[in-house]
């Protein structure tokens, strides 16, 4: 009925967080970094970029789900926009669906993103560990 509104709310929060993080990450670059810090940054993917994965997943899903709701006549282009909102009994079932299906959607997308985050962190750590060893090996040769 309106389950996609829960991930949409999360998408808005993620979008704002991305903007704030991007500004914060740009600040040290402008102020100038030490060589060691610059090297560290080049190895790691900035967190704002990783948060963009979540934002894109949420907005992408919400777009297609909103279309599905439009298809089924659950969204209308006039006030109150949700057909279920015009009837109190239907409003209650809509809120129940948002609390169950909607929350489960948001949680599952976030869980998948957390797995992506864990895997990318692991890959970055392995690359960082392999980096100095490879340098030593090449120096020995």
């Amino acid at each position, binding site marked *: 009925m309106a389950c996609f509104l829960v*991930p949409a709310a999360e998408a808005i929060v993620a979008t704002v967080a991305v903007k704030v993080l991007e500004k914060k990450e740009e600040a040290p670059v402008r102020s100038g970094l030490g060589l060691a810090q610059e090297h560290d940054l080049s190895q790691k993917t900035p967190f704002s970029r990783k948060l963009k994965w979540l934002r894109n*997943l949420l*907005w992408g899903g919400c*777009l*297609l789900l909103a*279309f599905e709701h439009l298809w089924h006549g659950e969204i209308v282009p006039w006030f109150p926009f949700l057909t279920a909102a015009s009837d109190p009994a239907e409003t209650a079932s809509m809120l129940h669906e948002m609390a169950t299906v909607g929350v*489960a959607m948001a949680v599952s997308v976030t869980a998948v993103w957390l797995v992506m985050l864990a895997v990318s962190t692991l890959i970055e750590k392995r690359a960082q560990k392999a980096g100095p060893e490879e340098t030593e090996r090449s120096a020995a040769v």
Partner: protein
Amino acid sequence: MTLLITVFAAVVCTSIWYKTAPKSEMMVGVLCFIYWGASLMWLVDAVFEYAELKAEYFTPAPGDMLNDTFLGLCAVALGLVAWVVILLIKDPKGIVKNALLRKKK
């Protein structure tokens, strides 16, 4: 059927993204996120529907299946349209910018 079609679209897009990586001039990654996001959400929806209908979930009426197939194809088309719009706005290759500047000259 909607879920199935979207999952196929997501897998195809991810394969294309992997093949063209690390180049991201066409921003195929955006398309991957759109389809995977929708697939995940529809998967959750399917789980809830299955919990309600049980085995009946796997035997939909032919009319419903046709409607769902049509919806899935339209959803894939909408995803493609959204991707093209994002591609033209972000314009990573500068094609739109160059075309506009050339006309002005």
